[in-house]
């Protein structure tokens, strides 16, 4: 069985890679993909904690609350990708580019 520490390390690496992508990429598709990476890193850590604290919770969700949260994040992420891609298509139609920096009408 994997050590939680190892898995959390993996999650941290994935999160940082995603964050780097979000901050450094100019293409909006890439930004969206990096964002997915960050969300899934969080999912991994949630699942890890859920396993680690198994049997110690109480109530309806009990020790499995982390798993439920992961499912919810996936659903939200799917919706977010849907909206995000729609926005990107709309911007692309207007400016003929997917460069995030080009949408700077509110500058100053």
């Amino acid at each position, binding site marked *: 069985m994997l050590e939680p520490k190892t898995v959390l390390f993996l999650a941290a690496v994935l999160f940082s890679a995603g964050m780097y992508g*979000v*901050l*450094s990429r*100019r293409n909006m598709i890439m930004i969206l993909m990096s964002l997915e990476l960050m969300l899934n890193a969080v999912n991994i850590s949630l699942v890890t904690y859920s396993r680690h604290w198994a049997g110690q919770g109480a109530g309806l969700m009990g020790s499995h609350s982390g798993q439920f949260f992961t499912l919810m994040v996936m659903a939200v992420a799917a919706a977010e990708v849907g909206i995000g891609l729609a926005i990107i298509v709309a911007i692309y139609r207007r400016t003929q580019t997917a460069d*995030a*920096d080009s949408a*700077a009408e*509110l*500058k*100053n």
Partner: protein
Amino acid sequence: MLELPKETLLYLVALLPLIGFLINGFFGRSMSPTSSGGVAAGSVAASFLIAVGLFVGPLQKASIHAHPEFLTWMATGGLKVNLGLYLDELSGLYMLIITGIGALIHVYSIGYMKHDEGHWRYFAYLNLFVFSMLMLVLGDSLLTMFLGWEGVGLCSYLLIGFWYKDLKNTNAGMKAFIVNRIGDFGFMVGMFLVFWHFGTLSYAGGDGLFASVRESTANGQIDHTLLNWAGLCMFVGACGKSAQIPLFVWLPDAMAGPTPVSALIHAATMVTAGIYMLARMNFVYVHAEQAMMVIAIIGACTALFAGTIGLVQRDIKKVLAYSTVSQLGFMFLAAGLGQFNLAVFHVFTHAFFKALLFLGSGSVIHSLEHTLGHGNPDSQDMWKMGGLKKKMPVTCWTMVIGSMALAGIPLTSGFFSKDAILFSAFHRGDTLGMVLYGMGMVAALCTAFYTFRMIGLTFFGSWRGSEAAYAHADESPASMTLPLVILSVFALVAGLLWLPPAIVPHPESGSIWVSFKHWLDPIWVQGQTAMSADSLLRMPVEHDDATIRAEWMNIGISSVVAVVMSLFGFAVYSKPGSLEKVKALAIRNGRPNLVYSILLNKYYVDELYDFLVVRPLKLASDVLFVVVDVVIIDLICVRGVAEIVRVSSDLGRRIQTGVVRHYLYAFAVGAVVLTALFLLIAQRGA
């Protein structure tokens, strides 16, 4: 006659001029001068007819107090004021003077203002003036009186500055308004003090001032110090409205307006308001002996002061204006001596002859303006008149009658009222009384002299102005001379309503000749009974033989003074060429002598006020303008705030780069910082 309740009729008296004002104010512009004048004169005349009808009632019966509940003006705490009207002998007399003489002046104005393009404005203001004055005298509380008090102040401003294209006129209007406002402040403070003491401002009714003062007197709860102050403060208001020292300066300038307006201000409305207020509040003033003394002294000083200034004025209207100030001084002298009935009697007789004199002078000016042009000062300069008797006989002889009354020639109306006032000062018996008597006598002497000086200069002698003006001078139209004739009849006989006790020694006999005096008695009875028996302010009831002998002597002295001085003044100024001799006496080697220049410049009072009040105020306001307005408000407050917002937003908007990644950086950094803080705090807690 319509079967209306008396309360409704009373409201109608006050409201008819207001309706006239509204009609002229809204539709007058498209009306002809005659029809707008007709509306104005008609509304006041109708008001007068109703007033006469109403008046027959209070002559014998109780007063009318109309105070419908739906006309509540304000109700706060202990103060409840309702726009009620109160008619008794005093307000009734004033109501008749205002509407009666007011109606004559309106009729006269139709002729006078025929060629003025602002006629509708003029008649609207004139009606508003009458309405305000009616509110002043008919109001059933001090606050309603104050409403009218302010109203006449406003209307005097509007009418004095009526020909507003001339800066001099608008300045005179502002002067009247500002000086009146100073007085109004005193009146307000006096009103507050009365409210403080008695807890009410209404006169009549169960909780009104009449009842409240009676109760306080009976219980010995009168605070004499407070009432002295209240009386003095209200007298300051009266000083402003009735042109007494030190607030008289506006009245001589008030002749800048059309001449009928001067007649209205000087005779029927406005200046008599101060006397009305003193007489109305007589039951308060009998408890304020020091204030009364001040009033008597100021009255006598004003009478003398204005009388001497009148001696040398060249402008026919200025002579009359100073005579008004002087006669008002006599009224205040009488009121200050406690003889309110004499003060009101003098208001009554003065209203006729002063309206007559002003309208007469207006007739002269009107006829000269035809040739000299409107607003030409020569049309008012008596040194450039003379011999107008042949051209304007009606104006001349009616003005002679008015002058006789003003000068106090025996058996005219002014003789009886002025003589009674002088005698009451004499009769007081102490040193102050004698001094006041002497001052009054000198003032009367001056009055007789300058009045007939005016007649001599204007109507007799030879013409000294331009030939063209004399050739075209003509008697005024009937709408102007008819009021003169009517007024001259009253100026002659009005005094017979109250013959002095020397002539009618037993007022109890119920003779018609003393009806006026007895008829006003209900107004004074409360104050008279509250006074101590030996008070100097008491109105005399009994006249023993010694008093009557003294009064005969007084009548003799004042008759001789009036007749001699009138003849003297007339003789000096009516002879052709005599003016040159008088001029030579006053002006030697091109320099006027000292007395003459002091009198001509009205004792330099205007200059003194300019130096003491106007200039410091102007300086202070200049300083305030520069320091407070320009620097603090404009620069620091208004522009400073705008500048701070602009500079800070200039800095702030640089943050908004518009690049999405920059926002994300900020977001990520923020998240890291927040997480770090959270961890730190969690660690501390653990």
